[in-house]
């Protein structure tokens, strides 16, 4: 009886066996990358809002301080979203008739708040606190990116736990001087030896606590 398979098919079998390992590894890699991709994290996705509010215009062009609207960023866990009255402070004078701002005026008239779409949405079991990060020298742009260049706000960082831990494990790579917190042009990451050196000095100056404490689960999860 002749052989069913030709001798050369042995090679095919070998390739299949070793290839399976490769395929499994590749599939895992794809899964991990998908998990980290913006498809999953929502990074870079521009959110359509009820009012097309442009940070680029208000921050970049007009130079309004972050804290004019996000009033509690230095005192509370929550940075604060401006009440309608804050918008109307200016917009009862300028662009007072703009159709784009009709939802704002409607809110002011009716007392019904504007429902914004959340751009940075952490899971509910994470208790992020803005005030302590600002206090310890983590600037706005470190997490929120170049918000002054965003006509429509999007999430600039993946906001996954490994991303948080990058800084919690080595804060010297990301901290900056307090007077630079709201500086949008500050380069978020300290890379050069001089910058890292300054980061290390800030750790001592701002009493930024070491890795064991920043890594403890209850620091963020309660």
């Amino acid at each position, binding site marked *: 009886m002749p052989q069913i398979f030709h001798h050369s098919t042995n090679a095919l079998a070998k390739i299949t066996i070793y290839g399976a390992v490769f395929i499994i590894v590749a599939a895992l890699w794809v899964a991990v990358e998908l998990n980290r991709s913006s498809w999953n994290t929502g990074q870079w996705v521009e*959110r359509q809002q009820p009012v097309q509010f442009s940070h680029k215009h208000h921050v970049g062009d007009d130079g309004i301080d972050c804290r004019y609207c996000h*009033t*509690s960023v230095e*005192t*509370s*866990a*929550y940075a*604060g*979203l*401006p*009440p*309608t*009255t804050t918008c109307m402070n200016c917009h009862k004078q300028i662009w007072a008739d703009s159709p784009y701002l009709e939802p704002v005026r409607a*809110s*002011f008239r009716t*007392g*019904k*708040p*504007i*429902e*914004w*779409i*959340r751009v940075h*949405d952490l*899971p*509910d*079991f994470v*208790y992020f*606190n803005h*005030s*302590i990060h600002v*206090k*310890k020298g983590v600037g706005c742009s470190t997490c929120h990116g170049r918000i002054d260049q965003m006509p429509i706000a999007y999430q600039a960082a993946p906001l996954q736990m490994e991303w948080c831990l990058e800084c919690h494990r080595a804060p010297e790579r990301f901290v900056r001087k307090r007077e630079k917190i709201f500086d949008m042009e500050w380069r978020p990451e300290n890379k050069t030896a001089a910058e890292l050196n300054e980061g290390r000095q800030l*750790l*001592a100056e701002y*009493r*930024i*606590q*070491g*890795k*064991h*404490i920043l*890594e*403890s*689960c*209850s*620091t963020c*999860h*309660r």
Partner: protein
Amino acid sequence: MSESDRHINFKLMRDHILAVQDGETPRGGKKYWRSLEELADTPVFREFVSREFPQQAEGWDDPIERRTFIKLMGASLALAGLSGCVFQPAEKVVPYVKQPEDEIPGKALFFATAAPLLGAAVPVLVRSNEGRPTKIEGNPDHPNNRPTDFPAEDPVWAPRGSSATDIFTQASILGLYDPLRSQTLTYREDIRTWTAFVGEIRSTLDEQRPKQGAGIRFLTESIISPTLGAQMNATLAAFPQAKWHQYEPANRDNVRAGAVAAFGQPVNTTYNFEQAKRILSLDCDFLSPIFPGHLRYSREFIAGRKITENSREMNRLYVVELTPSNTGAIADHTWEVKPSEFEAVARSIAAGVIQQSPAASANLAWIEPLVRDLQQHRGASIVMAGANQSPFIHALAHAMNEALGNVGKTVFYTDPLEVNSVDHRQSLQDLINDLDAGRVDLLVIIGGNPVYNTPTDLKLNFERLNKVNKLRVHFGEYRDETSELCHWHVPAAHYLESWGDTRSYDGTVTLIQPLIEPLYDGKTPSELLALFSDQYDRKPYEILKSYWQTQKSGGTGSTQPAQARPIAPQQQSATPAPSPAASPSQDFENWWRQALHDGFIPDSALPTKTVALSANWANQNQPATNQPASPDGFELVFRTDPSVYDGRFANNGWLQELPRPLTKVTWDNVAIVSPNAAQALTGSNTNGGAIKGREHYVPTADLVDQQGHTLRVPLWIMPGQPDGVVTIHLGYGRRNQIVNFGSATQDPVAGFNAYEIRTSYAPWFTTGIRLLPTPAQHLLATTQLHFTFEDPNFSREERDVLHSETLEEFLQGTKHDEEREHETLYTPYPYKDQAANAPNYAWGMAIDLNNCIGCNACTVACQSENNIPVVGKTEVVRSREMHWIRVDTYFRGFDPNRPEATNFMPVPCMHCENAPCEPVCPVHATVHSAEGLNDMVYNRCVGTKYCSNNCPYKVRRFNFFLYQDWNTQTYQLMRNPDVSVRSRGVMEKCTYCVQRIQGAKIQAELEDRRVQDGEIVTACQAVCPTEAIVFGDVNDPNSRVSKLKANERNYSLLGDLNTKPRTSYLSQLKNPNPQITQI
């Protein structure tokens, strides 16, 4: 070898080893035990503890068979896994339109108000997260809560007042969000508008006006609120023939009658425990939350038991009582006396104290030394009588205080708190007479549930209510038995939705301000009473404010202008800016705003007054309640339920599921009998009638009173209950009552209605009761056997759990073992040098068992703070209650009929440094923090439950089902936003209130300072009336917790396991009278 063979062999081997070790001797008696089963070491107990974690045994609720289910699951698992990949829908953020002043999103505000739940109010400070009240604390600035040496100048941190509250106040926040509260105004079960109701009342009033309101009757509970009282009096002035009746089932008629007998007038008695060295309680449970002023009294009483370097003296408490109580458990000497013999005992004590003669019927050896002890502390002792005792006992107590010279030193008298103090029984009798005679046209029932809770002989039933000629109106928070029989039902607003005022136990006017708009369109009693005046559309705030404006300008003398009282830091935001005002109206405005901010009107406590003992106090008033003892049959004692009181908290899941302090029964009421009596009745003196699986059944009996009424009651055997006395609790047996606690099954609450056999002439005890055993058994959810440390199947040695000693033993220092340092294989973690730039906190807790009065407030406070779900009776039966801190009750001694002592022990997570739970977790869901917290990471937990299996303290709780109510919207408002809401399949446990720790740490870092001692207060610590729980930094040698841990009474629970618990205990001290040997 098959699996089962191996299992059996291992068990055989273990049994063999243990038998050899112990020489086959059965365990003798035990020193401390939690249940009679444990004391007797019954097969029931062994069965129960043989499976150490019975809550984890498989329970199958579904009709589908397990194997079928697993087959189906296997197929659908892969598909189900994919469904996890769904993106969450985009969340919305909704800012304010106009942000309220002082409101910082993400930061809580605190507002002062008062909880008027049962009689005298508890002053509280309510946390509000973005306008949602979420947690109730005591108001530390209220005069009732401040220490007497409170420095007015610098109160910032140091001696702040107590923030204690009780179980009812803590749980009332659940009542606010209860979806079963009545939500709409109805007429004959049809929804109507408020204006329709107003119209109907106004037209009825117009008919009544010519007859001066002769047909109008009001039935209320005791009214303490000055504003409401003034409104009521104004209504009665406008309708002179109308009548106002007051009735509460747990009234203080006896207290009032006793005062009238002694002084010829009703008085309110207040006490000063700071000066009291000897206290005699005649059946007065003054440490329980139903006693007016119990928060201050417990704090001062326990402070008098504190042993420090300088003070080596303790006060001494004698309790003579009818049935075991918390106060009796704390006492240095407790005697249980039958109701029929109580008066004789009280008389002989009084004879000794007053006439200084040896007691007339001194067949009881302890009376003489007791009397001598009291007489040696003239002016520094207190004699108290319980509200359940007859007026004569109260008169005796007043006379004894007079004779001991206590009046003006430890005992004070003021006018009654009530606006109009009446005898409730007489008041109800008058109403019933009028109803029977058909003289009532309009009956307005404000609060209460009289159809359910009036006594049998004065029952407000359908026949009587039907004789109301025109209208019956019920005003209440719930649709209940009474509202069913009324035409109109008006939903009442919760106190957290209301404007109003009330008085605390000493008469201090305490203001009620709303934290939230009424959720369900409820009205306040003020609004209802306003309908009977000309200004029927006045708002409650106007009514309240104008009343106080009149009082202030009228110059009642009790209201002084507000001095600039210092404000606690967390309240500052709500302080009105004091303006340099001149005009009187501006003066009032400032005064008013300050009073609202502080939550009370300064210096408004009722002035003490001098009352003289009537000459013939002893001769008058031979009480009608003193019935002759029947030679056979039981004597019956009625008590309000420790958790649902007279039935008014029956809809509260937190309270229903709270184990009663002594019986540990939940979701039920029981008839308490002594072990001897049970032996005679059922042939067993342990509670486990039978255990089927994990279900705990107790025998039942038919309780037959002299009139022949029969009640089917489950029997509960209570160590220390006097023989021949059966105690039942009021408040259960409501019809079709359902408690909302989430998605778990909502079984109607069981229990029997004790009101069915309660008469108005014998409201607190009666005789001639027969108990007829029945073959039926009752499934009871009691936590007494749950989470026990002992397992006789495994070790025959009693474990070292509870430490208690007498003051004498302590001072001699005979019993102290050195805490041994054990060897350990773990690398010690450098808690004193945690990391670079670390403040090096190490959190720890000390629980002083000498202070614990077993009030359970910590359990409810924890439940409120940490979003802990209610699981329901079925799940409690399976040992699956979720309380993060439990209070274990231990009895001591070898005789179940007469336990030598009763001790309470709160058990939260120990936060062991060598935590046994941590190494066994396969997914690192429970790990140690750098500061020594045993962190639980819910989002990592996969539910293996290994940690719980390895916890020697049994403090971990597992969400077997979706216990948390995720659907009811109102409950979502209630949750603490700083604590994760756990879903099913997740382990949880005490976190030391890590949200409060982190909050304080962040605040301290923002202010460039360290966290100060006392800045972090855990929920259980904040609520504790006696400061039994102290939390803080154990690395700081000057912190309060470090000082307590350095105390020689300090010990670790199961310290021999070398888990190095961060929670440690201080042993309890008792101060018995050395001259009394008989216990």
